[in-house]
């Protein structure tokens, strides 16, 4: 492979960006769920 650095760079960017976005989104959901559990009294009582 004569153009290996270009190919590797393209694959790293293409894999890295979705992985970072997905990880950030999953952490955001987890944080929001925790805050919602604390904030939503009805949920804590099991009525919703």
């Amino acid at each position, binding site marked *: 492979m004569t153009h290996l650095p270009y190919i590797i760079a393209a694959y790293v960017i*293409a894999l890295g960006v979705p992985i970072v976005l997905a990880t950030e989104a999953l952490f955001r959901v987890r944080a929001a769920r925790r805050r919602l559990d604390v904030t939503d009294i009805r949920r804590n009582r099991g009525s919703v």
Partner: protein
Amino acid sequence: MDARSPAASPRTGHVLHRFANPGQFLRLSGKVLPWLYWPGLILTAVSLIWGLFFAPDDWQQGDTVRIMYVHVPFAWLASAGYFSLAVCSFISLVWRHPLADLAAAEIGPVGAAFTAVCLATGSLWGKPTWGAWWVWDARLTSVFVLFLLYLGHIALVRAFDDPTRGYRAGAILALVGAVNLPIIKFSVDWWNTLHQPASIGLTGAPTIATSMLWPLLFSAIGFTLLFAAIIVTRTRAAVMERRIRSLLMARASSATGQEAVP
């Protein structure tokens, strides 16, 4: 929730509200997400290993053709993401659907990131193939304009203190900017561009060898599932954050004895 529905069919609006209300969305998306993430990850991994190690070199481009297996899916998703942004904006403007507002706001950053990857991988392909990182040719320029439209949408949605006004302004920009999508698609036909014409179309047989077509299709499906998974996850977070905000505002207003402003 605003029940206004000006010229649109009330029946369509009713169906939208019934099947896409935030609570229903949280329940459905929780079940759908594993079916987006796992097949997306597996298909992407398989296609990239296939494209990197087992797909043949191109007779003209040599091994740089392997960049196509990541560049082309991101190029498709850059346009498809903007199309979905325009659809959400249309739903938001016509039916004032709150979930469409939240989804549109979440599609913007992800679409911008995917468009940036498309431009970056295109540059990494262009340098060894054309001898230049960038040329102002019609396809590249129109995709760059798409990137700017995404950035404009992100900025506009966050530019107002009242989120509803931001969503409205962003939706108008998204719909106006949708005119760029056919320009991107047909730029290689309408103008004499350095960028090659489409190898795969809805009409006619693909002009790409089958040994290259399969890993490309696997890659496109894999990245599409991941794109959808990211959007759905972010929208879930946005729905929960909105609920938290409204609960806190209601609590604060009941403490002060004033009516809550949503």
